């Protein structure tokens, strides 16, 4: 498991919007907020009508909620009529008009119910839309992977691509769901309650707004101050986790070198830093909630006192105070939500930026126009003045020409990093040549489709690549119409049949972490896979270097069966495996410096002879 995937947070806060202290934390900033959102909207254009509908519903639902307190005010005023009051110095007792109370109450019930239903529909729609968009994005990334040139993966790690599929798309799904809807409702509520407050009484409105603005300015100062602790905590946590990972996975060396004391010293240091930034940032984020409450209460008190003063003057009715007590809550609540929504919008943009960056990467050229096909290939291969470099400024293969007749065995040897695998990459058209041509049966590879080139080769690589599926699925892979008989025959040929029979479910045994296949057995499975493929030509890239030599002997036998009558290209670390090759290409620093048969090359006394002899010389 790569470090990248391991470090991602496990799970997610259940309950999302309820998460406390969610105002804290560091929001990642996108490079270009506007452009990315533009792209995102364009990407989601099929869903846009639905999004607009959802947002309109959200706005209406919120408006209904805002009108509520105003109605509650009317109700309070109705109730007040039932209270003893002084009129012209005499105590009078009014009566409550219950029909009025009732009609207001029913109206409110309708408002609240409507608001609930509308906002539920909105949330439901947005949840559905964002999940569908996330799914499309994931599918898009997965398909994109297979349309990209291998060149891309030379510079980008797997972990990076993986984190786009999961972390980034997840972030988009989660934040988009929360941000857009919240933003619309919060702004509506904020503006709406402000309007309603002014509509009711401007003095009280100014009091309410003034007192909460004061609080918010204060709070944003704290938030900005605390930001640096969050950044520090993030870094310290990364440092601590990095150190832990390093020491744990290098445990044997740490022990054997008595490095424990030093490791502990470093750890205590990192741990102390983490403690320091940790408690500070936690303290800061913990303060947010009480502060919010205080601002709410402060506004509340201000409204009560000013309201009371006004009510005593008779400027306002008591109902207005009741209404304001709710408005102040409606007014202060969305402010933090707006801040949070903006943070979320930023996170959405930052994550989408990475996803779109990936989508915008260059793809393999379209080949649907190429009508020429390779069929019934005999196996003649010709390299004609091949020139190639992974980067334009560094040519690796300068001018390589060679003719290989059908059925010949070609070996490519050379020290590590000499570019042996490059030849395979070119042969398979994983990379495009800078100039020159590779011909199969006289037809240039570039004139047919890539898939058509791939069909001509069976391939076994050093990394035994198996996926989580049964043994049978791994052997058949994507080949259509393979019978069980063929699978068994292939396994018998590589000497795996007996072993597979001993497994609990035979050929249907799933291959996963628990499956106890040795490295050699895994390699044999991939060779069986290549056999089933039954392609006219074969590539064996260091197919035996990760197994011990006795297992290698077994694999060698299996491979010899495989290479019979096929043109084959063999890359090998151990020179003993390729001595019988018809043509040996010796590579060094990316160039083919010698070529010929084993005996010819030994006679030349050049690099190959040197390389070959070095394995027998004892250390003097």
């Amino acid at each position, binding site marked *: 498991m790569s470090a990248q995937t391991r470090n991602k947070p496990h799970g997610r806060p259940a309950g999302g919007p309820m998460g406390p202290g969610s105002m804290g934390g560091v929001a990642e900033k996108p490079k270009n907020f506007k452009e990315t959102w533009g792209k995102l909207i364009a990407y989601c254009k099929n869903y846009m009508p639905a999004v607009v509908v959802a947002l309109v519903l959200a706005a209406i639902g919120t408006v209904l909620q805002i009108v509520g307190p105003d109605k509650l005010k009317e109700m309070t005023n109705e109730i007040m009529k039932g209270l*003893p009051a002084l009129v012209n110095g005499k105590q009078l007792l009014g009566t409550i008009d219950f029909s009025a*109370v009732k009609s207001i109450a029913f109206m409110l*019930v309708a408002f609240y119910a409507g*608001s609930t239903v509308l906002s539920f529909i909105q949330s439901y729609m947005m949840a559905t839309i964002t999940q569908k968009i996330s799914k499309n994005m994931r599918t898009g990334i997965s398909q994109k*992977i297979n349309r990209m040139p291998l060149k891309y993966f030379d510079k980008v790690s797997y972990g990076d691509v993986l984190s786009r599929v999961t972390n980034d798309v997840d972030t988009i799904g989660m934040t988009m769901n929360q941000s857009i809807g919240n933003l619309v409702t919060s702004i509506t509520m904020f503006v709406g309650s402000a309007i309603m407050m002014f509509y009711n009484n401007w003095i009280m409105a100014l009091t309410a707004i003034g007192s909460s603005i004061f609080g918010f300015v204060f709070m944003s100062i704290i938030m900005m101050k605390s930001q640096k602790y969050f950044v520090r905590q993030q870094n310290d946590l990364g440092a601590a986790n990095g150190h832990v990972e390093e020491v744990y996975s290098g445990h044997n060396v740490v022990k054997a070198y008595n490095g424990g004391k030093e490791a502990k010293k470093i750890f205590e240091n990192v741990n102390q830093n983490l403690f320091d930034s940790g408690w500070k940032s936690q303290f800061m984020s913990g303060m947010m909630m009480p502060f919010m409450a205080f601002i709410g209460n402060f506004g509340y008190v201000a409204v009560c006192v000013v309201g009371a003063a006004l009510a005593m003057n008779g400027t306002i009715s008591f109902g207005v105070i009741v209404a304001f007590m709710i408005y102040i809550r409606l007014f202060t609540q969305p402010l933090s939500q707006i801040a949070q929504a903006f943070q979320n919008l930023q996170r959405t943009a930052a994550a989408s930026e990475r996803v779109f960056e990936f989508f915008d990467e260059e793809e393999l050229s379209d080949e649907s126009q190429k009508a020429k096909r390779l069929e019934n290939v005999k196996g003649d291969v010709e390299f004609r003045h091949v020139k190639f470099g992974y980067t334009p400024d560094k040519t690796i293969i300068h001018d390589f020409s060679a003719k290989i007749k059908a059925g010949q065995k070609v070996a490519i040897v050379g020290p590590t990093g000499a570019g042996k695998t490059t030849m395979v990459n070119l042969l398979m058209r994983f990379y495009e040549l800078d100039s020159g041509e590779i011909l199969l049966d006289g037809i240039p590879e570039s004139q047919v489709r890539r898939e058509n080139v791939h069909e001509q080769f069976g391939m076994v*690589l050093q990394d035994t690549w198996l996926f*989580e599926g049964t043994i049978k699925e791994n052997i058949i892979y994507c080949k259509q119409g393979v019978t069980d008989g063929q699978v068994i025959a292939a396994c018998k040929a590589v000497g795996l049949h007996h072993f597979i029979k001993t497994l609990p479910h035979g050929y249907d045994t799933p291959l996963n972490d628990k499956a106890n296949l040795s490295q050699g057995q895994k390699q044999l499975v991939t060779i069986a896979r290549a056999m089933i493929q039954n392609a006219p030509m074969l590539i064996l890239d260091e197919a035996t270097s990760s197994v011990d030599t006795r297992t290698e002997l077994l694999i060698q036998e299996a491979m010899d069966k495989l290479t019979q009558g096929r043109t084959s290209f063999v890359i090998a670390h151990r020179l003993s495996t390729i001595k019988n090759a018809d043509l040996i290409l010796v590579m060094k620093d990316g160039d083919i410096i010698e070529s010929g048969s084993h005996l010819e090359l030994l006679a030349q006394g050049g690099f190959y002879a*040197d390389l070959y002899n070095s394995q027998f010389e004892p250390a003097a």
Partner: protein
Amino acid sequence: MIRIFKYLKPREWLMAFISLFFVVAQVWLDLKSPDYMSKITMLVQTPGSAMSDIWIAGGKMLLCTLGSLISAIIVGFFAARIAATFSKQLRSLLFNKVEAFSMEEINRFSTDSLITRSTNDITQVQMLITMGLQLIIKAPITAVWAITKIAGKGFEWTLTTGAAVVILIVMIGFLMIFVIPKFKKMQTLTDNMNRVTRENLTGLRVVRAYNAEDYQEKRFEQANDELTATQLFTSRAMAIMMPVMSMIMSGLSLSIYWIGAYLINAAEMTDKLTMFSNMVVFSSYAMQVIMSFMMLVMIFIMLPRASVSAKRINEVLDTKPTILDGTRTEGIPGLAGEVTFKHVSFKYPGAADYVLKDVNFTVKQGETIAFIGSTGSGKSTLINLVPRFFDATEGEILIDGVNIREYTQEALHNKIGYVPQKAVIFRGTVSSNVAYGDNGQGGYSADEVKKAVAIAQGSDFVERMDGGYDADISQGGSNVSGGQKQRLAIARAVCRKPEIYIFDDSFSALDYKTDRVLRSVLKKETAGVTSMIVAQRIGTIMDADQIVVLNEGRVVGKGRHRDLLQICEVYRQIAMSQLSEEELVS
């Protein structure tokens, strides 16, 4: 869960106790302010009351909220300190514990799991403590206190509030029962999708070569569909929460006023005003009750996750290291670098079969002993017994005439320069990697480092690096190649000036030429140091003084290259697979 709190120190307990006091103070103040509100309400309604009284009441109410804020800040401060101290403590304990583990315990937990336990799990516990101190204590107190306050003020209102709480709990309970398990499932499905993607990425060349793009995409779509279906379910279900919550809040206010109208109407003349102010206050208390119940629910959601984490941390802390230190620091005088295996057998705890059975040999100072055999023959295990990564199940291993269990581990390790199969490289510089650890002789000079790198055939590439010996090495050595890493690891062993080298298949990442030159130089420069080599290539070990051939954990041949070719069938097979017959005898 509770067991983990035994690691809290008295100081933290004291701090927690003080926090408790302030929590109570905060709740008291929070519940006090509505009283003043009620007073204000009365004042406004009572004819002839002075404006100054209202100011006083308002001022007091403001003091209450301010006091509440200050208490909250104090509690927050303590909570953050306690949680951070606690997690620092736990992290340190775990780290030291794992540090003391032998490979056996490490393998039992797996490195990945130990890393998660030392990082994520501790974060979980820390979060619970911070939240807990503020909420676990506060929520129930507030709920109970607020309920007692409102209980006397109107039965119908209390009933309504109760109903609201019930609706809230039912909804959240419903979500918890039906949705939370899906969140867990979602993690598995995400892992699943990750796996399929990773497979596609790691097998990119195979996928292309077999034209299996569609096959892979189909597999991905299946994983994607499953994940999306679950995500749709959870996010749709969660969509109900916020609307219902705000409905409960608004509905409760409305109900209280609506009921209030009837109550006031029915009340006695003089009670009407009190009743009215009660109504206003009540709606405020009711909100407090609802809020505290919501907090309680949140804790119930967090608790299971944190308690799983706590359990996982405890598991590690409760594990006793199986490798115990001896007391000797010196071997028998006059001996240096002599290793003897006497009837050594080894099996993993709980396993049925022996990995090694009855291994015997002695290697003298300056000699080279090599171990060869197919994968799974036990040669790596054998060599790992020497630095006591595992302890032999039966028999004994002597270094310089003393059983290795009698040495302190530090003294034992000072005799050994160990190079693992997979080079371990730390973040730092070339120098810090080569001069890693402590050989009991107090550090290494720059010249020593340089010389070690030269012996390991690394001077060329190191001096070409940006910054030379001070060049930065990133985590896991990702900026140097496999062969370079291996050479740095060998340089590290050389720099240590040990009595015994242990090379666990350390040369296979090097090409033949480098391999040979390196061994020649090593032999010349560090004569007198015993070498124990595990190898795959016959070429690497042909010239060893002793070759031990292992097959399924048993020694099937022992001797020099030429003798073994004659007498040992397994050895001959291995050799034949690598070299042709005439080369073998040349």
